[in-house]
């Protein structure tokens, strides 16, 4: 595995996901119990609320070589903590600007709402992001 060509052929997108415990982590659980199959590229980090997700976590993950980042939480209005997800939504706008400013494709990040009953929606979100990231190619690795 030394040449770039081999690397690219074997490359599989790596996606870090931050899921809130109450909606999206549970939604991912439901996807599992319903045996909904989706790409195995995502690694979930459980947080209490999307409001806990510091934009720095997202940038750190990209900086360290993640090809994509997913932040997933309760639908606006359904937050277990009343409004943590709205705070995340507000931060997300700034985060997107920063990401674009750094010349990173916005296709690599995704903020999505998925409730505890939306296993399919969660799986679809992962699928869509994985496909987009796959199209965008490896991040930060091609020039190293």
């Amino acid at each position, binding site marked *: 595995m030394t040449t770039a060509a081999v690397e690219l052929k074997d490359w599989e997108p790596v996606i870090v996901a931050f899921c809130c415990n109450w909606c999206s982590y549970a939604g991912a659980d*439901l996807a599992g*119990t*319903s*045996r909904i199959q989706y790409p195995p590229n995502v690694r979930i980090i459980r947080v209490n609320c999307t409001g806990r997700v510091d934009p720095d976590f997202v940038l750190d993950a990209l900086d360290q070589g993640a090809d994509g980042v997913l932040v997933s939480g309760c639908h606006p209005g359904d937050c277990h903590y009343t409004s943590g997800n709205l705070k995340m939504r507000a931060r997300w706008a700034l985060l997107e600007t920063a990401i674009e400013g750094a010349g990173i494709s916005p296709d690599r990040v995704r903020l999505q709402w998925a409730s505890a009953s939306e296993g399919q929606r969660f799986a679809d979100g992962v699928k869509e992001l994985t496909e987009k990231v796959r199209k965008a190619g490896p991040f930060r690795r091609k020039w190293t």
Partner: protein
Amino acid sequence: MTEAEKLATLSQMSPTQTALVIGGGVSGMQASLDLADQGFNVVLVEKTPSIGGAMAMLDKTFPTLDCSACILTPKLSEVARHPNIELLTYSEVTGISGQAGNFKVKVLRKARKVLEDKCSGCGDCVEHCPIEIPNEFDQGLGFRRAVYVGFPQNTPLVYTIDDENCIKCEMCVKACEREAIDLAMKDEEVEIPVGAIVVATGFELFDVSKYPRLGYGEYKNVINALEYERLINAAGPTAGHLLRMSDGKIPKSIGFVQCVGARDVTNQVPYCARVCCMYGIKNAVMAKELQPDNVKNVTVYYADIRAYGKGFEEFYNMAQTRFGIEFIRGRVGEVAENPKTRNIEIRVENTETGEYLQHEHELVVLCPGILPPKELRVIASELGVDVDSDGYLFVEHPASNPVDTKVPGVFVCGCAEGPKDIPDSVAAGSAAAMRASITLAKGGEV
């Protein structure tokens, strides 16, 4: 505590602080936990060597396909460890007298021949036992020794010697380093004072051989649903490999026959067993899930699909759309075996098309209804509680007081009152605990 000390303690319980729960299935376990969590003492009597009931035998549960053992096992531990619950397994209630606030309950402690306070569940005795007999827990498909636990999560984790099959060779006695085996142990009876009683005796599976036309017992590749559960269970006799009994091959085509011993007036089971449609669909889905490349066709033969509970209809839809399970409306007339292939031909009229079908399957699973257990009548008469026409305990005001029998201080939950699925049994267990706790808190006053 030694057995003698335990019996002495039990005979001295304070009736206003103690409830009896008869039956250690999921409903009785829940009733026990909810009483014990309030601070009351609970004596939980279970006739088999382990609590867990029928749920412990199931592989997956509908409608989420959660694995049964995974969700039940922690409950087993919780019951076994609760400081307020006294677990009497391998025991039976033989007599009840008195009234609310002050019942006297006779419990027979069947001789387990293994000392509960000494056995560590290590299983060193097992390999020394020369006797092999079919394991009831695996529906007779696997084997156990005369010294045994039915399943690995047996709770309490204490071995039992089955007196009927034991040849008293004493090999196990020598093998046990803890000297936990006592072949001279005798049955003992203890009278326990309690203030309230919860009946949670569960159900018995309908004996599908009562329909000779469906071939059970005659053809090897006709099995019942509980046997199927054990077949696909990782801890079961085939380590979870779905295969048919005649030749060990993975069946490419499976037929599930619904309503066997349910909604049938002539076989004295006029009522709906409430669980078979859903467990049938679940088992059909599991066949596809376990062997997606090998199992090509799964067909369910039904009368009505009764997907009534939370998430059930959605699961039924998923079985059709995602898993491609075929559903044919028709009560199976008869089955026949192809003597060469040992395949089973199902003969049925598709009532939706009027067609007469002859479908060949490599395995046929009969989905039995459920019956009140035989001992329920005995317990009911000891308690003075009425039994309804179907043989379950009678409840006078089901809408307002769904777990109250006509005898004050006696409550019913789970399938003792009528067929129920797991969540309904659990809810009823909690409800019976609530009602029993009121009796106890009021000292039996009604």
